[in-house]
């Protein structure tokens, strides 16, 4: 995989499709062995690896695309009304936080991932509070915040390894988003 191919329209579509599928596989994997049995609501969030990769191979817009596709597929195949609601708010909070961290605050990938995990869980807690309207949910607060941060740390480290090993990080070669104008998507001669 070299960078020129990845930046073509069809290359981008292929890469984003692979990342979406990756997130689905990771979602399935973590449902098999995860901690959900012991601590309710805290998942490893491995699917965020794919979203982070989209963010750092391309840009924020592509990360949003991967997240939306992942949510669509997961709800179509495994979900119900509630899981959709929780997934959407969790992803919304998480994406907003990660995009802020990357674009405005320019933070390290691991810190971005930690905030993503944290805000994802906070978003879900807020939805749970609105649906169930009960204050005692704050008993879950420390577990979900600390769990989200730690899971974000793990996800960030794994993502760094993947990006390094596959050399998929973006043009500047460091784990930092380049300005979007450097990352041009163009069509090749045969109109791809």
């Amino acid at each position, binding site marked *: 995989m070299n960078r020129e191919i990845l930046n073509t329209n069809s290359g981008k579509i292929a890469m984003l499709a692979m990342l979406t599928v990756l997130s689905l596989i990771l979602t399935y994997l973590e449902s098999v062995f995860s901690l*959900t*049995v*012991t601590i*309710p*609501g805290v998942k490893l969030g491995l699917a965020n690896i794919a979203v982070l990769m989209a963010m750092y191979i391309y840009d924020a817009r592509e990360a949003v695309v991967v997240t939306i596709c992942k949510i669509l597929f997961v709800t179509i195949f495994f979900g*119900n009304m*509630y899981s959709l609601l929780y997934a959407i708010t969790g992803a919304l909070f998480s994406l907003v936080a990660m995009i802020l*961290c990357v674009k405005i*605050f*320019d*933070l*390290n*990938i*691991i*810190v971005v991932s*930690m*905030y993503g995990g*944290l805000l994802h869980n906070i978003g879900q807690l807020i939805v*749970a509070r609105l*649906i*169930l*309207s*009960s*204050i*005692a*949910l*704050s*008993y879950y*607060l*420390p577990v979900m*915040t*600390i769990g989200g*941060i730690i899971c974000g740390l793990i996800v960030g480290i794994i993502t*760094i390894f993947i990006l390094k090993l596959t050399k998929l990080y973006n043009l500047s070669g*460091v*784990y*930092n988003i380049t300005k979007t104008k450097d990352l041009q998507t163009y069509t090749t001669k045969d109109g791809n």
Partner: protein
Amino acid sequence: MKKLKFRDYLAIIILILISIFTVMVYFVKLQYSTRGEYVTVYVDGKIRYSVSLSTNTTLEIDTGNGINTLVIKDGEAYIESADCSSQDCVNHVPISRVGEQIICIPHKLIIMIEEGN
């Protein structure tokens, strides 16, 4: 890994502060909690049953979305079995302190410990 700048350390410190804050909230709540007297069962936001914690009972709750079996034994309440797919409610530890709850999200069921009358 890229060099960590001052911004990153600041962000990490903020995360640590948030964690400490949430743990403090949890312990403060724990301080103020007392042993409860009643178990109130809410289905879809409305009170369905109110049972005393001092009597050992088994209660089968038909929530309209499924069935949960509530057991009160030795001053604690827990859900013995349920036909929901996630089983979070069944795996929960027994509750006994005021404000503690066990919830079953797909069945819209909340069992909560309350005090007084």
